[in-house]
């Protein structure tokens, strides 16, 4: 398969980034080093190219009702420039993807995981055809780049670059705005996947390189660094945010992953509703927990979780936390087997190592 490139690929290569294949794309995994990039986001500003995320725009009669029938979270009452996190489920409640739905001034937009873009487009087209809608779904990745500017210095930097045309501090979390940026009007949204404040910018593909360099140049006095997928993963893990293919998959329900608040049942129909109502009634048999290793080593994905000699679950994501300076992991376990504050074991390379069950998230930014 031919791997795809974002509009910034050549820029990443020129910057000396290490490039890896990821979900059908060649993407930068690190520039300077995962820990230095991670710390830049926590303490200053990080700049991410996330143009591999699937960007789907919708047009046609009844888009609002069409999407409301597919997403587990409510679409119909979104305000202009409001954004929501949602799941897309199969009829049996298994998660096909976790997404952001945007109600932009002119149309609805869905941002989906790169690894799931083709699957979700097929799913939407299938619903469109079988339920006799005439919705147009357009993948915008060839014309739009998506940049994330994250960290305590992100909003001040963007405000400085935008000037008096907009007040970014007044844009609430999970809201967006249209602002002038380097001679274009772009959509900037107060969203992210790092546990820090910041914005994500939809920039025309032709302007992506100029925007990237301008942000790095203007942000240089404030400690901005380009950040690759390596630190994107350690940042989201510290913030307790799920990653599809790890904490979520089509055998996992939103309830299993603790995402029930993104399933809205009242006065609406959506794919998976019946199965999820039943699951709500019964209670989920799995749950996600946080672990901090007491013994040395890292419990990576696939590591078994052991309580009183019994396997009760498996690590879904594990890494070294640069902020906490210890190994952390998220694990999927049988409900009720691992209570916060208790200690249990993880099987790292045939050794049982001690770990403490902690509340998620591992990290919350100071406010």
């Amino acid at each position: 398969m031919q791997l795809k490139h974002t509009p910034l690929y050549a820029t990443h290569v020129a910057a000396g980034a290490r490039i890896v294949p990821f979900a059908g794309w060649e993407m930068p995994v690190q520039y300077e080093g995962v820990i230095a990039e991670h710390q830049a986001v926590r303490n200053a500003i990080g700049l991410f190219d996330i143009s591999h995320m699937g960007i789907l725009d919708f047009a046609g009669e009844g888009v609002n009702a069409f999407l409301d029938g597919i997403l587990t979270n409510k679409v119909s009452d979104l305000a202009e420039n409001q954004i929501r996190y949602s799941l897309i489920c199969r009829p049996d409640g298994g998660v096909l993807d976790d997404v952001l739905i945007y109600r932009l001034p002119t149309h609805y937009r869905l941002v989906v995981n790169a690894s799931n873009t083709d699957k979700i487009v097929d799913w939407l087209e299938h619903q469109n055809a079988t339920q006799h809608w005439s919705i147009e779904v357009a993948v915008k990745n060839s014309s739009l780049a998506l940049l994330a500017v994250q960290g305590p210095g992100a909003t001040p930097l963007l405000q400085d670059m935008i000037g008096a045309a907009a007040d970014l501090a007044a844009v609430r979390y999970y809201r967006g705005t249209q602002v002038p940026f380097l001679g274009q009007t772009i959509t900037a949204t107060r969203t992210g996947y790092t546990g820090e404040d910041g914005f994500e910018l939809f920039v025309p593909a032709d302007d992506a390189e100029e925007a990237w360099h301008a942000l790095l140049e203007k942000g240089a006095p404030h400690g901005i660094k380009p950040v690759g997928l390596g630190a994107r993963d350690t940042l989201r893990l510290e913030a307790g945010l799920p990653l599809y293919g790890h904490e979520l998959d089509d055998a996992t329900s939103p309830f299993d992953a603790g995402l029930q608040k993104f399933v809205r049942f009242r006065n609406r129909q959506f794919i998976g509703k019946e199965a999820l109502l039943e699951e709500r009634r019964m209670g989920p048999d799995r749950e996600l927990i946080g672990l901090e290793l007491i013994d040395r080593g890292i419990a990576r994905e696939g590591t078994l979780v052991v309580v009183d000699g019994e396997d009760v679950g498996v690590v879904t994501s594990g890494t070294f936390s640069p902020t906490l300076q210890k190994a952390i992991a998220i694990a999927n376990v049988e409900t009720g087997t691992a209570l916060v504050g208790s200690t249990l074991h993880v099987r790292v390379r045939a050794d049982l190592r001690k770990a403490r069950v902690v509340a998620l998230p591992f990290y919350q930014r100071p406010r």
Partner: protein
Amino acid sequence: MNIPDELCYTKEHEWARMEGDLCVVGITDYAQGELGDIVYVELPEPGTSVDIMGEFGVVESVKTASDLYSPIAGEIVEINDELADSPELVNDSPYDEGWMLKIRPSNLDEDWETLLDAEGYKAVVAESGEH
């Protein structure tokens, strides 16, 4: 990338150097660069015996875990205790402060013949880079 001429190497990216009658072992500059930020180094207790190309420990970076293989057979007489608290020494100084083991060789002459010189190791690295 630094591949000193005076060291010997394995295909698994360890280096070896004789100091008196002990063999000092670590991982190469290329290996530390590929691993990225190193956060744990697990080494055996001194007194442990190790076979040629036997696993003697694990190095963990943020991204991945990688087994360590002994260039020669013998008894491990000393480990670098500094790495327990400062694993980043392997990134910063792979051939000096980031050393891992000192081994008393049990079959030095034959084992040493199996190691690569700097030119041979450069070819291994060049091949890895093509993947």
